[in-house]
């Protein structure tokens, strides 16, 4: 079962939207290339609500399209990851572009130690691995 919804942020210039897709028990959220602050804040609220509603075990945040990761975006991502953990699920941030990774490191961003993966496929594997480990222990 795949559910898809589009949230439109207040985005007068590019009109970008965030897609939130549920794949089995993981929520897959794809960030647009250049989200504004309002879009990012809306994302946080919608993601947390969706995690509660669908009782997913993980959140995969696909940032492969993201061109600019600044301190505001990074703070919301790290905060969201922490909140997701508090709710009992796992966050994996997937697909950071090399140029973005270099810049983020130089800027001093750490993403609060959230799990990361090269791409969405690997992120989905991490979520299911982490879940299985937790089931066993």
């Amino acid at each position, binding site marked *: 079962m795949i559910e898809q919804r589009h949230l439109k942020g*207040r*985005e*007068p*210039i*590019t009109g970008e939207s965030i897609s939130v897709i549920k794949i089995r028990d993981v929520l897959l959220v794809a960030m647009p290339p*250049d989200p*504004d*602050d*309002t879009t990012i804040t809306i994302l946080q609220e919608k993601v947390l609500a969706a995690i509660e509603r669908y009782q997913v075990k993980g959140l995969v945040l696909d940032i492969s399209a993201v*061109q*600019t*990761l*600044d*301190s*505001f975006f*990074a*703070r919301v991502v790290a905060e969201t990851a922490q909140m997701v953990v508090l709710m009992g699920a796992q966050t994996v941030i997937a697909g950071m*572009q*090399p*140029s*973005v990774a*270099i*810049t983020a490191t*130089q*800027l*001093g*961003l750490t993403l609060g130690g959230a799990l990361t993966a090269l791409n969405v496929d690997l992120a989905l594997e991490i979520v299911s691995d982490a879940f299985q480990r937790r089931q066993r222990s």
Partner: protein
Amino acid sequence: MIDGIREEVAIIDESDIILVRKTVREAATKFNYSLTDVTRIVTAASELARNIFLYAGSGVMRWRLLEGNGAKGMELIFEDRGPGITDLEQAFQEGYSTSGGLGLGLPGTQRLMDEMEIDTRVGVGTTVVVRKWQRRY
């Protein structure tokens, strides 16, 4: 007045931060900076534009090209008539923030750019100038 200003973006709304990023990305891409340098410049611009929006309410971003001594580069000027910064040294300390932010904007921008100058007067405003020189490969 500064000579050679190519473009000017008024920062009034939060969405103008996106406009600053878009303007700077287009310009830096056009002038053949590497993708990583484009990302560095745009990220720095995003930090400085957001600082204006958050702390001064409004201001302006201008950019121009630099040429001289066989070197080429790009200069971005961020000007506001906000409250100014009382303690610059403190403002450049990593983790220092008066808005619950990460406190990475100013120190991070300094690392991302080649040169950074800041002129601030309490009650008058703040002007931040950043430059990135073109590497010859």
